[in-house]
Each structure stands twice: as structure tokens, then as C-alpha cells.
């Protein structure tokens, strides 16, 4: 059981090493003078992610986004309840299903209320 988690740990180690190596390779090649270095403005411009930014990149976001984060958090905690039920679905039988249906219904009351109150609409 724990050995399986060891594989996850190994995955983390490989991921960290991979990203480090990817950063180190160009620096090392530059240091060993294998790749030439003659920069010009076009080479050094930020072209990968679309346009060049106008103004500051750290802008203040609209607080309406926070509502979606809070609702996401609530539904995330709901998933925590659904997950063990889904694992043990067959053994729990219809009774477990009713319990979960009531659980989901209670949370969905909030969702429907948000819908009716037009909280999900973007103004």
C-alpha cells in the first residue's frame, strides 16, 4: 500500500529533476559555448504568450470572481462526501443512495437559489 505512494514520491522527484534539467540545459550549453550568443531586440521580446502587455500586468481583479471560488470550494467539499460513497457503492445499496440524494439536494437548493437570484450572471 505505502509502496504505491512511494511511486508518487518518485513521480514528484522525476518531475522536479525534469524541470531543473530543462532549465539547466540551455545555461550549460551557453556556458560551454556550444550555442552562439548574439542577442537582438526581436530575440529578447516576449513572443510566446501572445501580445506584449500594455500597462501593469498585476491588475486588480473584479471581486465577482470570488463568488465562483467560494461556490467551487463548497462543491469541492461535497465531492469529498461523494467520493467514499462512490468507492463503496455496491455494499451500501439503496440506503446509501437515498442519503447521498438528500445530501446533494440540500446543496443544490443553494445552487438553485443562486440561479434565481441571478448571482451566476455576469453584470
Amino acid at each position, binding site marked *: 500500500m505505502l509502496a504505491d505512494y512511494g511511486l508518487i514520491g518518485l513521480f514528484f522527484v522525476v518531475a522536479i529533476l525534469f524541470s531543473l534539467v530543462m532549465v539547466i540545459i540551455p545555461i550549460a550549453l551557453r556556458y560551454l559555448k556550444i550555442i552562439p550568443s548574439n542577442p537582438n531586440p526581436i530575440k529578447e521580446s516576449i513572443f510566446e504568450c501572445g501580445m506584449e502587455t500594455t500597462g501593469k500586468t498585476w491588475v486588480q481583479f473584479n471581486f465577482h470572481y470570488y463568488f465562483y471560488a467560494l461556490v467551487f470550494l463548497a462543491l469541492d467539499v461535497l465531492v469529498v462526501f461523494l467520493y467514499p460513497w462512490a468507492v463503496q457503492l455496491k455494499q*451500501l445499496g439503496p440506503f446509501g443512495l437515498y*442519503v447521498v440524494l438528500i445530501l446533494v439536494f440540500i446543496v443544490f437548493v443553494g445552487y438553485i437559489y*443562486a440561479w434565481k437570484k441571478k448571482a451566476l450572471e455576469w453584470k
Partner: protein
Amino acid sequence: MGLEFAFWIMAVVMVGAAFAVLYLRNVFHAALALVLCFIAVAGIYVTLSADFLAAVQILVYVGAISVLIILGVMMTREVQKGNPVNKMRLPAAIVAVVLLGILVYVVTSTPWGISTQDPLTPTTMPLATKLFSENGFILPVEIGAVLLLAAILGAIVIIREKKK
């Protein structure tokens, strides 16, 4: 042996990330360090054979709480400047030291009972039986749903425009 090694790696990463949260000037970088700290806590849960708790830690803390914190950071005005020092520095330090003292005292003076039984793995299935079977904790589960409902309603109240 391997378990102990994993524990120490997680512990070092966790404490390092926590210090990074405190000392990084950029609030956004501090939030990312906090996410790393949460992941290390999940690793600690795994070494304690609490696999469901580790999954929940990843799902809720790394997934949702971090989104909440990063969105909160995105709404602040001066991300790069960080927290300016204010007059509350000394009182905050006193409170922190007192809290640390209480925690250390409680942890060291409590007689921790160590079970001789092997830990139950995997924990998800017995947990499901406890929560959803006919003589399980049905009422607390439904009350938990009511709590989530209250959270959603609170979110609606927060974004509602004030009546003119």
C-alpha cells in the same frame, strides 16, 4: 526506514515552505509557497496511513483553498510590495510566542498513546460504511450539507449589490 526518510523530507519541505510564506515579500509567491506546504502536509498524512485524508487535503486545500487565496491575492492592489510593517508588530510577536509556548507545552506534556495494532488501509471503504450505512453518521453528514448550503448562501450575500 523509507517511511522515516519520507517523513523527514516532507517535514523539511513543510517547514521551509512555511518560512517562505512568512519571508517572501511578494504576496503571490507566498501563496504558491503555501500550496507547497499543503502538498507536504498531504505527504505527511500518507506516511501516517491516512490515505483518504491525504486525498482530501490535495482536493480541498491544494485544489480549492489555494484558488481562494490566489483569487484573494489577485484582488489586492499592491502584490509586489507585500505586507508593510505596522504598529501591531510587537503585540503580534508576543501573541505568537505565547501560542507557540502553549502548543509546545501541550504536545510535550500529553501522554500520547501508541496503538499496537496495524493501521487500517485503505481507509476509504470503512469510512464510507461509517458515513453512509444504516447505523452510520447520517445526521452529521446531512448537517454538513446544510453547512455547505450556508457557505453558498454566504457567497451570494457577499457579491450582492447593495440596494439603493
